[in-house]
């Protein structure tokens, strides 16, 4: 407690001319503010420390695999623990394609729901629907997975995949054996999981657009549809943020996808064929991998997931920047 004892004025003046740790840390020169600031700084540094230690730990453990396979790990298609041969391309492919399918379905759906809730629905309808959307976002993924096996997969097998094959069978996308388990089902379950997240965020973003903008559009003689377009344009950056949030969940999702995607490390043009994602292969094989190279390959694949997520976020930030450049006063997600 010694630093807190009030010092005589002369001494205080002298120390102020020399280096004063309170002034250095806080502009008010108060001890409490300085301590407060240090604590906040340490909290922020902790995040950085966690990220750095995760990356270095994973890179260090992945070293045997990185040394053995080099860049070929990213382009290799063979995943064979028996022969000590590991290539990650099928997992990267499965992760990206299933996430793209999810977004293709989820984005228009979530925008539709959010626009309805904010722009069209009367309050007594909007409230309960908004509540349900938030409820859906909180359901654990294993529950989605079970529902996927017992309800969604049989439904797609009987009612969706045969007509798709009948009408669009000339596309390689819809050829092959119909089992209800595969890339398409994985994408659909992801879409169902990310829709509530995107909807909830977009709804908040749209609600943040000032009412005066809608009134201005209407006053200029715009229709309800045209007004909605004005609102959407103003909320563009927030909407992009919501989509990135959904994409993040889709890429990292493990249990639900594992249960319906079929878990075969292959690259096939057909969406009906089984596939495999990075998160699934990690969850499935981590506890059983006793061999050093195998474990190291799994850690390297985890590192790739990390980098893919980084890249997706970077691209999304660029996208947001390019959309919002030049416009000001837009509503944001945060």
């Amino acid at each position: 407690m010694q630093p807190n004892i009030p010092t005589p004025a002369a001494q205080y003046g002298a120390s102020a001319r020399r280096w004063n740790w309170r002034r250095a840390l806080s502009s008010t020169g108060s001890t409490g503010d300085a301590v407060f600031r240090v604590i906040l700084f340490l909290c922020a540094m902790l995040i950085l420390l966690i990220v750095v230690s995760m990356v270095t730990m994973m890179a260090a453990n992945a070293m045997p695999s990185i040394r053995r396979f080099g860049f070929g790990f990213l382009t290799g298609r063979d995943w064979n623990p028996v022969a000590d041969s590991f290539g990650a391309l099928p997992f990267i492919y499965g992760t990206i394609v299933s996430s793209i399918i999810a977004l293709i379905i989820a984005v228009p759906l979530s925008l539709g729901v959010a626009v309805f809730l904010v722009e069209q629905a009367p309050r007594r309808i909007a409230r309960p629907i908004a509540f349900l959307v938030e409820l859906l976002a909180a359901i654990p993924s294993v529950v989605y997975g079970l529902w996927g096996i017992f309800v969604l997969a049989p439904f797609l097998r009987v009612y969706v995949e045969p007509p798709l094959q009948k009408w669009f069978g000339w596309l390689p996308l819809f050829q092959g054996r119909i089992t209800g388990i595969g890339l398409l089902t994985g994408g659909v379950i992801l879409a169902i999981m990310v829709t509530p997240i995107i909807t909830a965020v977009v709804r908040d973003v749209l609600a943040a657009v000032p009412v005066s903008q809608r009134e201005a559009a209407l006053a200029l003689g715009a229709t309800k549809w045209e007004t909605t377009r004005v609102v959407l344009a103003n909320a563009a950056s927030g909407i992009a943020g919501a989509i990135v949030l959904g994409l993040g969940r889709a890429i990292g999702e493990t249990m639900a996808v594992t249960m319906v995607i079929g878990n075969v490390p292959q690259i096939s043009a057909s969406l009906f064929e089984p596939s495999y994602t990075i998160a699934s292969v990690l969850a499935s094989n981590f506890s059983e991998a006793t061999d050093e190279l195998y474990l190291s390959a799994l850690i390297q694949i985890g590192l790739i997931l990390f980098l893919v997520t980084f890249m997706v976020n970077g691209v999304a930030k660029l996208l947001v920047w390019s959309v919002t450049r030049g416009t000001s006063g837009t509503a944001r997600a945060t």
Partner: protein
Amino acid sequence: MLIPKKISQAVLALVLVTVAAFGLACSGDPVGKNSGDSGGGTVQLQGQGASFPKPIYEKWMSEYGKLHANVRIDYQSQGSGAGIKAIQSRTADFGASDAPMSEEDMKKADGEILHIPTVLGAVVLTYNLEGVAQPLRFSSEVIVDIFLGKIKKWDDARIKADNPNVTLPAKDITAVYRSDGSGTTQVFTDYLSKVSPEWKQKVGTDKAPKWPEGIGMGAKGNEGVMGQIKNTPNTIGYVELAYAKEQKLPVALIKNSSGNFVEPSLEAVTAAAAESAANMPDALHQSITNAAGANTYPISSYTYILVYKEQKDAAKGKALVDFLWWSLHDGEKYVKEKLYAPLPPDIVKRAEAKINSIMSGGKPLRQ
């Protein structure tokens, strides 16, 4: 200015007190924990490993706990590989695995590890075929070719030849296998490697091999495979006997090395073990797939508990050997009700000798 300064000093004091209290609490914790453990007189054992014997191990642990109130045993089923890792790193008092440890794995441990066989299990073929009531019959070559992707349709002539009285649909076969590393897969691929040189060369024996492309799909865990087979028509896959029986899925008869189609019954599994019991090596682990004998079920396997021969903690070691001894004798009556096959009598005797050889500080723990 005076009041804010006082407040900030109070904040600082509070922070310092909290930090000090936290530090004290942290340093004090292990002391309290240790004294609590030794003072209570209870022994806590931690096991980790294979998911296949989990139901019988849990039954044993609960029954044993009723008889010995001072012993608490916990078991985490995270897979055979996790069991081997846990015993190597001594993060558990005993490990459990369906597949024996390899020479390499043994070397990584800091002491001699013993394999104690506990029960026997079977890997069965189960399927989802509409309109087929009686159990299907498969010869080993047919199973190999289904999982190699050479037999693609259910009405293939070779499946028909084994099942002359069954009308099989002209549908594609979808094979379902374990996507996660698994002792069950190890036993199944060990069998396929023994009956087919082609399988041995192309795929091999492993907990998570590279399956031929285009044969079907992978699913996580016994439950995942069962779920996939139940919900997808025209599928075939392999699971542990107990799981298939509990879920009332059809179970196929498999042609053994004597040419008989055998149902996976507990007797047929024990018979497979008894057939080769005389050749059991000193390490007390062996593969019993594709066993000789007229009534043996060909995809059978031992499951093992892994323990260090030299126990560091005498009290824990004593509790462990007593539990192992009990499970081989009094525990045996619970084995069949949980759908596992009991060990042949010769192997029980050899396991007894192994348990008797477990020591602590140079003294055998069991008198």
